[in-house]
């Protein structure tokens, strides 16, 4: 990363400068893979990619404003809260900076003037998880939210609720204190023995949930979003049923590619229709293959 931004805008050998601005907090396992994808694409095309993320919509909007001030060659935005970003994206469009939206916000992308949308919403991913859990016989599901008030996490739980058919209960834990998270999940399982499924939304929480289920002697089935080496191990050991894999690496790689092509060649992909990246599932069958990739931060 690095490099002088504004001066580099036109000067960089052909590549250009693209700003990726998401609603993921720094260090979030999911968004980190997006970042890796975007940066890898940038390297590939000789473009400068700057990545910024902030879960607070106003701050995200300010980051977009900043990118516009720097006159970048393209902006990639995740739209968890389209309303709040409307003005900032409008500014970018007005300044003739091409915008690609990623992850959520597919329905607003066109309206706001984005050239295309990549990924699919958290809600859809949640639906997939719900369906699969239902097939496994889960009737009462615990959806573990590790960041209260985060729209993306809430949408995942909503999606699961929509397709599971049974009851979905939420539990709030703190991702930065796993011992505490583990004991809270255990407490919930101990006090309500009818819970027979747990859906973690983060790989570290999945490991904490696995320990909680084991220690508490519960029979609950466990599924998670996103991957880590530990989660892949757990899937292979049968402790975790599956991990929802949105292949978010593509949500970083593709938009940079599209913007690069737009800049070079004025290409737009799919006539502005959304490009879907997932959901994929990592299960016992394909865990071994994915394991290596997860170690490398591309899955």
């Amino acid at each position: 990363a690095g490099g002088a931004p504004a001066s580099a805008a036109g000067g960089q050998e052909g590549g250009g400068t693209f700003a990726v601005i998401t609603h993921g907090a720094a260090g979030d396992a999911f968004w980190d893979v997006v970042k890796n994808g975007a940066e890898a694409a940038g390297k590939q095309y000789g473009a400068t990619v700057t990545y910024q993320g902030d879960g607070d919509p106003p701050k995200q909007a300010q980051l977009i404003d900043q990118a516009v001030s720097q006159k970048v060659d393209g902006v990639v935005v995740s739209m968890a809260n389209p309303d709040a970003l409307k003005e900032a994206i409008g500014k970018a469009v007005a300044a003739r900076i091409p915008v690609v939206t990623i992850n959520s916000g597919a329905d607003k992308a066109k309206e706001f003037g984005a050239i295309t949308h990549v990924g699919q919403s958290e809600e859809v991913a949640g639906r997939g998880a719900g369906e699969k859990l239902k097939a496994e016989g889960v009737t009462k599901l615990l959806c573990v939210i590790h960041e209260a008030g985060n729209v993306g996490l809430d949408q995942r739980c909503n999606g699961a609720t929509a397709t599971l058919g049974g009851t979905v209960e939420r539990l709030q834990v703190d991702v930065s204190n796993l011992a505490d998270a583990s004991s809270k999940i255990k407490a919930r399982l101990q006090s309500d023995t009818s819970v027979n499924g747990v859906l973690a939304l983060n790989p570290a929480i999945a490991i904490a949930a696995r320990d909680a289920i084991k220690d508490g002697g519960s029979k609950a089935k466990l599924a998670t979003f996103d991957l880590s080496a530990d989660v892949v191990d757990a899937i292979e050991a049968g402790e975790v049923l599956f991990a929802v894999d949105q292949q978010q690496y593509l949500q970083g790689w593709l938009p940079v590619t599209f913007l690069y092509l737009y800049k070079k060649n004025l290409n737009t992909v799919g006539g502005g229709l959304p490009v879907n990246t997932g959901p994929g599932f990592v299960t016992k069958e394909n865990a071994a293959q994915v394991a290596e990739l997860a170690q490398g931060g591309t899955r």
Partner: protein
Amino acid sequence: MTSVIADERIAGAGRVRRLLIRPELGSVVGAIAVFAFFSAQSPVFRSADGVANWLDPASTLGIMAVAIALLMIGGEFDLSAGVLTGTTGLVMVTLATEYGWNVWAAMLAGLALALAIGFANGVLVVRTKLPSFIVTLGTFLMLQGLNLGVTKALTGTVQVSGLRRAEGYEGARALLAGSVSAGGVDFRVAIFWWIGLTALATWILMRTKAGNWIFAVGGGEQAARAVGVPAARTKIALFMVTATAAWLVGSIMALRFTSVQASAGIGQEFIYIIAAVIGGCLLTGGYGSAIGASIGAVIFGMADKGIVFAGWDADWFKFFLGAMLLLATLANRLVRRYAEEVRR
């Protein structure tokens, strides 16, 4: 008594040092250093567009930092101030969209709620004599729960939106969240609110009874009480001022982004305190200035946005931010240390 014309016990350098002793002057030096640093890193940072850009977050932060500075000079903390900006925004947007209120009416309702919460904070602190750190931590957590619980109960999601369509929106927005064009660059009106409030707060601190009382309740509550300062009333009023600032910032944000997330404002409370402390407020109360807090907000805003302008890797963002903060406060301190030696 012999009355001397020029007191021989005053050292020559007195005047210069006296100027430097003002709580905010150290932070001015820090601000200049940070500005110079990032200007060298990125030409956009020092362009009019860039300045408008980093002044924007500095303005809302500054409004809160000034209020928090008053409160801190008065010897108390308010950890609920950040989340209260979210609460007032949520109330306003919910009333305007779900219940069809006029935006102005919804804003007034938000103000009433903010004042009630500020009053409750103040009364709890004054009555129970618990440290305000703990009391407002309690209200912070409770508000956080309320924001989420009520929003979910009413809308089924963790955010409310659609304020744009509400009646009276355009007018309110122009007043609080619009922008003013100067030399082809748009500056947010919040910047003017911020400057105005800083001036007002400075005037109150330096030139009114109330200001004297604020310094006194923070610097020696027992002594102040003993000479008849209404300490309880002063403190309650300070909490209400902070709540009002939170309402103002909450409304500015809601009007600007037309939607509010239930987690809005969480974690900001410490940034307000940081800005006030960088600006020279003592954590123990009784000392500080409103201008200093504003400059603290500028330093924070510059460091925060400067790192992005400079294009440094986001993974290291916090590292640079921490280093900036330390260096800015250190510069501040060195200037002050040169200027004074206080015995306790």
